[in-house]
């Protein structure tokens, strides 16, 4: 138990030491000293002492969400756009369990978060006390690390350490479980002054010999490719600049995972688009046929590789990752490099220049010719209609209207997410918020809120689906309360479109429970929250409506009624190889369902 016999008489000339503070005061002081400006949270009995301290100060802004899951996703959106860790505060029991989906999401997408959970008083732990949950037990597998603070004097050190752990190495969420009596009890505020963690020291710089070997292998490649992932974003904007510099000096095509979009400019000719299940024809074919692959900050996820034994069969694989466990997990690599993406790219550039490797490169003309032939397939083409808004068209027009505006885009999960990844263009990192690893419906709206809080003047859009939107729609209340000018662009196809697509392709069109029955009137729903609601279903009105949405000074919900039965292509079917991709109009006949084809 914590020592309560304080040295209160100790001179308070040094503010850092000798001052008796409650655990709750310590939390606020440590967070303030660490530069935290925003907390996303929701109060409850077990965090009342912390809320009381929040009330008494004005350095840290608290954003009240409407559900704890929303708090965590908002913190993810904040973290992903700013590069700083997001901070969450929730109460014990149901507050903590409601946060679990968000924590798991952050774990899988390597988002740095600190989540402070209230806990029942120490002497009640294990007694099934009111609103007691074994938070450290429940969150152990879905956090990078977690703490139960048992001694008040440890509060400052634990908070500093949690920040270190969340942001160093492969980032991730960290939970700090704070018993209520620890929040109340007074102790001396002191930092032990130790390194940020006693032993945890992730390797940042790669092995020089391996990096040299990698640079030479890339230079020797006749069909080289860079496959970049979310690690580029996590490594900071500099990593994106270095990636661009390296790809340019080597003249190599770049493809990106869903999580890595924006790490390399989409408008650059060397960018092949996203790879994987709904990746482009050119990206997937280039991955399949390449002779040397530089995977950087990417983890060979099953949505990326397709059938694993047919994945890029003839290539020398170089993998740069900060997490040793990501290397050789799914795919055997030839040159593993444990390093931070920015550090590794800096070294590769240096070695490339030093060894004048451009001079050693074989001509890549034939490779680029081949890539151009793949590009000519025009794999994202679709049949437009003047009777209904095609979802691809909606996103093409959205892209047109946000061009050059540095918009931050969040998405939910489903077809609209994949279309957004295909049709929206990201030239910079930190502008794209999506749930990649966990695929969490309901992520986008709160994530857009978090981004908007971080960047009040930027255009923040949640590209949403009719089903996903309903998973966290209570956050309309948060948007309204803080008058956040978030734009909600619901691609309403009246279906859980992605589920329906799979049912049509794999279950003979038996659309079991994938129809979005009893949808609310989204326009009116927005209005009920005091938010401007709009809708559009006539393709002729699409442009003016999107323009009005963007230009409106304040939050808008646009119910964009799109074609109901449209499949997302290209598609690598389950269990197929990259070069067995399906395109629109290929192989699968659309079900002839006139009613379903009609627009709402």
């Amino acid at each position, binding site marked *: 138990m914590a020592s309560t016999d304080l040295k209160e008489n100790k001179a308070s000339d040094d503010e850092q030491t000798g001052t008796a503070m409650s655990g709750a005061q310590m939390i606020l002081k440590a967070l303030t000293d660490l530069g935290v400006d925003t907390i996303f949270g929701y109060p409850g009995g077990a965090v009342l002492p912390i809320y009381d301290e929040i009330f008494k100060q004005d350095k840290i802004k608290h954003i009240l969400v409407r559900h704890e899951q929303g708090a965590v996703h908002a913190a993810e959106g904040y973290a992903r756009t700013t590069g700083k860790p997001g901070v969450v505060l929730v109460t014990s029991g149901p507050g903590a369990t409601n946060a679990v989906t968000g924590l798991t999401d952050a774990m899988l997408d390597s988002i740095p978060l600190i989540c402070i959970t209230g806990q029942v008083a120490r002497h009640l732990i294990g007694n099934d006390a009111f609103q007691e949950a074994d938070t*450290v*037990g429940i969150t*152990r597998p879905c956090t990078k690390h977690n703490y*139960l603070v048992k001694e008040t004097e440890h509060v400052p050190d634990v908070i500093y350490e949690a920040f270190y752990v969340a942001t160093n190495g*492969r980032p991730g969420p960290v939970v700090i479980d704070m018993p209520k009596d620890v929040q109340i009890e007074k102790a001396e505020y002191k930092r032990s002054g130790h390194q940020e963690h*006693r032993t*945890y020291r992730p390797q940042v710089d790669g092995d020089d010999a391996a990096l040299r070997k990698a640079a030479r292998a890339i230079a020797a490649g006749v069909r080289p490719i860079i496959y970049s992932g979310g690690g580029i974003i996590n490594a900071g904007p500099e990593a994106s600049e270095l990636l661009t510099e390296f790809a340019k000096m080597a003249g190599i095509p770049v493809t990106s995972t869903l999580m890595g979009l924006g790490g390399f400019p989409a408008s650059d000719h060397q960018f092949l688009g996203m790879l994987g299940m709904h990746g482009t024809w050119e990206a997937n074919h280039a991955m399949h046929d390449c002779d040397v692959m530089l995977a950087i900050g990417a983890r060979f996820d099953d949505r990326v590789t397709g059938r694993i034994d047919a994945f890029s069969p003839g290539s020398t694989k170089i993998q740069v990752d900060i*997490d040793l*466990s990501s290397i050789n997990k799914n795919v055997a690599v030839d040159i593993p490099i444990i390093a931070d993406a920015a550090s590794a790219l800096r070294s590769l550039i240096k070695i490339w220049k030093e060894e004048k490797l451009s001079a050693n490169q074989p001509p890549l003309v034939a490779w680029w010719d081949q890539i151009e032939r793949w590009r000519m397939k025009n794999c994202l083409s679709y049949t437009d209609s003047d009777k209904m808004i095609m979802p691809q068209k909606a996103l093409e027009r959205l892209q047109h209207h946000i061009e050059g505006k540095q918009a931050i885009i969040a998405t939910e999960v489903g077809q609209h997410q994949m279309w957004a990844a295909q049709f929206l263009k990201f030239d910079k990192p930190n502008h794209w918020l999506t749930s990649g690893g966990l695929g969490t419906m309901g992520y986008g709206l709160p994530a857009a809120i978090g981004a908007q809080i971080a960047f009040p003047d930027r255009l923040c859009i949640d590209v949403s689906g009719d089903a996903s939107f309903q998973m966290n729609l209570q956050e309309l209340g948060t948007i309204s309360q803080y008058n956040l000018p978030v734009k909600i662009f619901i691609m309403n196809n009246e279906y859980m479109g992605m589920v329906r697509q799979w049912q049509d392709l794999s279950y003979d069109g038996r659309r079991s429970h994938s129809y979005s029955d009893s949808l609310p009137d989204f326009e009116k729903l927005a209005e009920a929250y005091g938010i401007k609601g709009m809708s559009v279903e006539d393709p002729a009105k699409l442009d003016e409506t999107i323009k009005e949405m963007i230009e409106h000074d304040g939050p808008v919900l646009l119910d964009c009624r799109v074609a109901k039965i449209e499949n997302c292509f290209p598609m690598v079917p389950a269990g197929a190889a990259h070069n067995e991709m399906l395109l629109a109009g290929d192989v699968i006949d659309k079900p002839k369902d006139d009613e379903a084809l009609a627009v709402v």
Partner: protein
Amino acid sequence: MDGANMKEIGPIARHTISVIVDNEAGVLARVIGLFSGRGYNIESLTVSTVDTAHETSRITVVTSGTRMVIEQIKAQLDRLVPVHKVADLTIEGDYVSRDLALVKVAGVGEKRVEALRLAEAFRAQVVDASRDSFVFELTGAANKLDAFVDLMSELGLVEVARTGAVALARGSDAL
């Protein structure tokens, strides 16, 4: 999905892995949760503090898997925040590994005499005796213990308690 099965199909080998961890609450749960969560096997797992300050604990885990799975297990262990060191004794040179077993045998007459005679041959200690039972204590490599328990099963074996393996690399170096 079962982590131990979805990987390359290669020969499955048994590995003894030493893990040095911070001696803090929940660290064992983290290690065990990692094995169960990712579908790795645990054949045995032992843990105890090993320094006088009680700051670190040593976990010895015996597991099995293909080469890729074993590499994954080590990498996954290594990235747990309170883990300091991970060593695969099986591939890092010679090592000694010992289990301790307590074996209770009940019987009278011929069988009782035979049990005692075999215990001597195995250098087992008698740590408890009654008129119709013994508890033997035996240390050794796992297969020696297996053999002893096997023999006792015909001589009135009642129950067995075993520690699982503890292991150290041979030679003068520490982990």
